[in-house]
């Protein structure tokens, strides 16, 4: 009798296990080939991709309600919701900084934020950069939908929904696609790159894992993939930019054929000639060749912070020949007066205590030192390179401004840095440096950012010099 009960229980357990295995196998069979929304191919019939790249637009466009004599570039660093919040507060502070009325604006005073011509964003900073371009200076929607929201809670909820189940069984639809759809639907109203205004120019950066180099969401890059950036959702680009390894899977793009004729590609031909002495040119030509090899059918993208965690390389690139800054400096009607570069760095660095103990540092501590700290050093170098470029540009004005119309009005370029490392109060600095890198900030943490960021902007010596320059001159 007892043996019968045991056998019956065993049978029931086996049947239950078999049913579970059948369900899992069934789900795997049904869902394994489920694809996410990929980037679309360029079609002969479709309209040509809309470009927000001045290089593709021809000459410098007129700016309706902006000052044509000012060029302002802003770079937002990575750092999850902290980076988005610091970026957003910086924009709010710039919005409160008055800017003299510009011609054609019926004498109405403007503000400094309206003068922004290009916004670059990495990881958490990419969310703020995209929102600024899309929502036209209206700060409220993004504040509510992202900055004040528990995004990681929403992500976790979605991972336990039907989408999460699909991501568990599909070989193509991964966790990052669940995140991308959340950003697309609930933060950016399903807007795509076609919905962006002509300016500010938006630069969202991620990392191409095969090349180990920066991947920027521009029409030019997508053309190399035989793809149309215009129809690509902004939320997906932000997901790629913030796909931190291990926590999130990389985001995948399709690389469509046919290959381009590289012998007619100016950038490639010159890159080949210059690659021996120019590392950037060398990397660009390698990327051209890689994307042109259509057996590389997929491009896998991860967090942009893996190669440039402050977005400063993006600004440096614009000093290159035919970059936005280079073209504007060579353009004389009207001549450039103010070049303003704002580096919004939400990086944190807690003091290491490894020196207090004879034990070897933990794995986490070693990762922190080798990956994050070395990246911070690289970013600091890039900020110094930007400083050197600005000095060189201003020296050209001193040397040749009298005979060169495009350089005649140039003021010393302004380099504004918003960084927790500049906080003067030691206790506030300690608190700011201890802010978490996550997609969730509590009210207390947001209040701290609200307190320190406006002060960091206003106390920056370069910001103060700019404010002085913008004051009406008394005769």
């Amino acid at each position: 009798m007892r043996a019968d009960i045991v056998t019956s229980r065993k049978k029931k357990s086996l049947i239950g296990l078999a049913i579970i295995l059948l369900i899992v196998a069934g789900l795997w069979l049904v869902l394994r080939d489920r694809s996410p929304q990929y980037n679309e191919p360029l079609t002969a019939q479709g309209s040509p991709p809309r470009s927000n790249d001045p290089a593709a637009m021809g000459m410098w466009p007129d700016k309706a309600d902006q000052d044509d004599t000012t060029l302002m570039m802003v770079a937002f660093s990575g750092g999850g919701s902290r980076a988005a919040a610091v970026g957003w507060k910086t924009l709010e502070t710039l919005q409160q900084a008055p800017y003299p009325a510009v011609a054609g604006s019926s004498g109405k005073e403007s503000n400094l934020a309206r003068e922004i011509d290009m916004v670059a964003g990495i990881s958490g900073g990419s969310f703020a950069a995209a929102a600024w371009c899309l929502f036209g200076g209206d700060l409220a929607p993004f504040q509510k939908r992202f900055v004040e929201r528990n995004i990681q809670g929403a992500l976790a909820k979605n991972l336990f929904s039907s989408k999460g189940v699909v991501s568990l069984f599909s070989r193509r639809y991964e966790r990052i696609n669940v995140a991308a759809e959340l950003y697309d639907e609930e933060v950016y109203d399903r807007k795509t790159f076609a919905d962006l205004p002509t300016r500010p120019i938006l630069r969202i950066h991620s990392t191409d894992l095969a090349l180990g180099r920066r991947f920027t969401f521009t029409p030019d890059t997508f053309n190399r993939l035989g793809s149309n950036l215009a129809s690509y959702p902004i939320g997906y680009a932000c997901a790629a930019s913030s796909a931190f390894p291990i926590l999130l899977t990389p985001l995948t793009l399709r690389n469509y054929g046919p290959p381009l004729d590289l012998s007619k590609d100016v950038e490639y031909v010159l890159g080949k000639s210059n690659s021996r002495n120019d590392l950037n040119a060398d990397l660009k030509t390698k990327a051209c060749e890689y994307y042109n090899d259509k057996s590389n059918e997929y491009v896998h993208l991860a967090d942009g912070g893996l190669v440039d965690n402050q977005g400063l390389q993006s600004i440096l690139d614009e000093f290159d020949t035919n970059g936005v800054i280079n073209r504007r400096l060579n353009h004389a009607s009207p001549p450039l007066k103010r070049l303003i570069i704002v580096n919004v760095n939400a990086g944190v660095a807690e003091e290491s205590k490894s020196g207090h103990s004879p034990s070897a540092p933990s794995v986490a501590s070693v990762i922190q030192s080798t990956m994050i700290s070395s990246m911070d050093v690289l970013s600091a170098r890039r900020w110094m390179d930007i400083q050197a470029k600005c000095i060189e540009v201003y020296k050209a004005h001193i040397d040749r401004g009298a005979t060169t119309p495009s350089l005649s009005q140039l003021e010393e370029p302004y380099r504004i840095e918003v960084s927790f490392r500049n906080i003067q109060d030691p206790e506030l600095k300690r608190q700011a440096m201890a802010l978490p890198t996550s997609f969730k900030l509590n009210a207390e943490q947001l209040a701290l950012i609200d307190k320190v960021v406006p002060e960091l902007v206003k106390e920056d010596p370069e910001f103060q010099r700019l404010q002085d320059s913008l004051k009406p001159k008394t005769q």
Partner: protein
Amino acid sequence: MEYIIVEIKDKPNVDTDVLINRQPNGRTGVLLMLGGPGWIFVSADWPRAIEQRVNVKNTTPQHPMNITIECELTS
């Protein structure tokens, strides 16, 4: 950074777009900045202008490279 001045041969007073790497960037007859040293394509928006491939290096604002754009002869 590097510096060039581009002119049309035998027409030093012509004021037109300079094409650097086939994109308009500045005007003829005035100092133009380049991002750095290396090979570039230079031409001008002028009838029958012949594009040149030049290696620009070791220039300063005071000592730019002078580039003269020739034009194809018309029959």
